[in-house]
């Protein structure tokens, strides 16, 4: 492809570029793993990317909504942990039926999210601070319930956790993967085919213009945080299935993984631009890195952190270069965004 046509392509499809870059990166990491280890590209290894990261996928989907509105949600890990704790405590220690507990914990997550969204919109508390308080609050609640890990032996939970779904080709996936894929599909439909989805993009692009055009900014912001809270809770339920336990230290640092996945997936941190499928790719890239490090056979988990940090850096820089080009003309806008 000559440079001219590449440039034209880039100009027409600029919004897809980050996603394309992520796709290329995903293919590259897979190829690197395949080059280094025999059997890396087997179907089960790929399926396990989803099995091991189903909870992160769901949480990152919620985070995508919030980041698209130009906000950030630091409470996702803590809300997920609170969910595991509530599930384990109510089912194991209080003897509540799981079919009652699961809707209840989802509601708790949604209400917490809505509360943060309310404070952010109506009291003009910065998203960073409001969700930070939410994070402290949810973790604190975990500790109030119990400081110990609570194992789960409930029949429904263990059945759900241990039963598999066989895909063509003899590949096994857990039911969590099915739930995660459904959540991704639902988020895709909501973001691209509903009024709420369009409002999310509009608010993130420019809240003032959105308001002037009649988009209900407040309602959209509150709903986006509610979605994030709900997804965190659902992610927490999936994590409960994954570990079959509730513990207040579960999911520490997940908010950063989720933010990293969203950013690597090409969603602009300033809001208004990004795709759910990009987020899926972002989660998969993180998953492949983790898998490669596992295949390497060492327990040096710090390489994951360094790799994630480096990727985050590269992608944010990429975004920065692209948005700087897009806004070449109005200089004051650039200044405002970098402030």
């Amino acid at each position: 492809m000559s440079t001219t046509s590449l440039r034209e392509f880039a100009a027409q499809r600029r919004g897809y570029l980050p996603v394309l870059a992520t796709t290329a990166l995903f293919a590259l990491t897979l190829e690197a793993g395949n080059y280094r280890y025999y059997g890396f590209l087997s179907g089960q290894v790929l399926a396990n990317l989803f099995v091991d990261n189903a909870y992160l996928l769901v949480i990152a989907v919620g985070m995508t909504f919030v980041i698209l509105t130009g906000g950030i949600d630091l409470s996702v890990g803590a809300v997920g942990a609170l969910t595991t704790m509530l599930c384990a405590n109510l089912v194991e220690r209080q003897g509540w039926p799981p079919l009652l507990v699961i809707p209840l914990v989802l509601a708790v997550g949604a209400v917490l999210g809505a509360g943060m969204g309310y404070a952010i919109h109506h009291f003009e508390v910065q998203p960073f601070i409001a969700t930070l308080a939410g994070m402290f609050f949810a973790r604190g609640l975990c500790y109030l319930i119990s400081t110990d890990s609570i194992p789960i032996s409930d029949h429904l939970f263990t059945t759900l956790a241990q039963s598999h779904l066989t895909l063509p080709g003899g590949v096994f996936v857990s039911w969590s993967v099915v739930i995660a894929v459904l959540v991704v599909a639902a988020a895709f439909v909501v973001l691209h085919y509903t009024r709420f989805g369009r409002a999310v993009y509009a608010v993130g692009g420019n809240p003032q213009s959105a308001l002037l055009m009649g988009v209900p900014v407040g309602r959209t912001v509150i709903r986006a945080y509610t979605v994030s809270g709900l997804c965190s809770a659902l992610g927490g339920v999936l994590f409960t299935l994954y570990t079959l336990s509730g513990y207040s230290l579960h999911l520490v640092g997940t908010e950063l993984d989720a933010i990293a996945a969203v950013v690597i997936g090409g969603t602009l941190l300033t809001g208004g631009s990004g795709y759910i499928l990009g987020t899926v790719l972002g989660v998969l890239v993180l998953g492949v890195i983790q898998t490669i490090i596992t295949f390497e056979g060492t327990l040096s988990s710090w390489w994951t952190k360094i790799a994630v940090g480096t990727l985050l850096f590269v992608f944010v820089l990429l975004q920065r270069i692209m948005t700087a080009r897009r806004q070449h003309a109005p200089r004051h806008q650039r200044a405002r965004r970098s402030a």
Partner: protein
Amino acid sequence: MRKVLGHRLFWPVALLAALLVTNVIYSPDFLSIRVRDGHLYGSLIDIMRLGSPLLLVALGMTLVIATGGIDLSVGALVAISGAVACLNISHLTNQKDSGAVVLAVLLALAVCVALGIWNGLLVAGAGMQPIIATLVLMVAGRGVAQMITGGQIITVNSQPYHLIGGGYELGLPLSVLIAAAVLVLTGLTVRRSALGLLLESVGGNREASRLVGIRAGALTVTVYAFCALCAAGAGLMISSNVASADGNNAGLWIELDAILAVVIGGTSLSGGRFHLGGTAIGALVIQTLSTTVYTIGVPPETTLMFKALVVTAVCLLQSPAFRAKVLPGRARRRAAAVQAKPRKKEATAP
């Protein structure tokens, strides 16, 4: 009376006083300070000693926030600084050698300052959002710290190094004196020269400051480097106090506590104005809060809950929108007056 109530430090000081009174109610000899071996001992001294790393980090954070930024990487820097210092000291044949220990400490400080300059360059040079630019180092930095310590906890047995976090001078813990000295020096530097004003100007409007001839970029890099230096100092105090470096847990969540201290102290998170004195009180409030939780016999794990309640309360009280909607009468009129003034950045905050 109105002057006292309206002072910006009134609510933080009131909060601190309320916490102290709570402590005295639960343990009557809380305020007593004893002299033992020429050193001062007591709960108040403990609060200051345990709070000094947080105060240091919060000081650097205040200046970064004044320029409209934020530094999430301080926790990772705390871990890196302790790891670098302890690694070098543990390699010494004679760990009592003061000269070699000083070299190790200087190396740790230098590494962190270099990382701070990196943060500053990302923010000022590449124009990244500060929260993201420093998020990179927050994620990768803790990995680096773990790599330095090899995933283990490095213990050292060095008397000179132990002085930083556990030593006494003039009857007071050395860490308190260091933190106080940095506080006073920083305060003098920024308030007795135009520097503080320039920082606030950059925080108010970076582009406008640059156009009137303020070197906004250089100032930003300097501020991030200073913040990293402060974090490195805190890291030395923490690791020296326990005579070991833990890449995984040293300074965990201190960035959040530091931001909290800055916010309680009345510094606006959107930049443009800052109060170092407020930050100092904010840091003391947070440390006292932790101590109070222990004193009144609540399980210490619930400290996070209390912090959440404090952050929420402080943020809501600082929010003009909240005051206008909820508080009655005079407060509402005053809040309305504040809101009527043109407020910057409202446009971008969703």
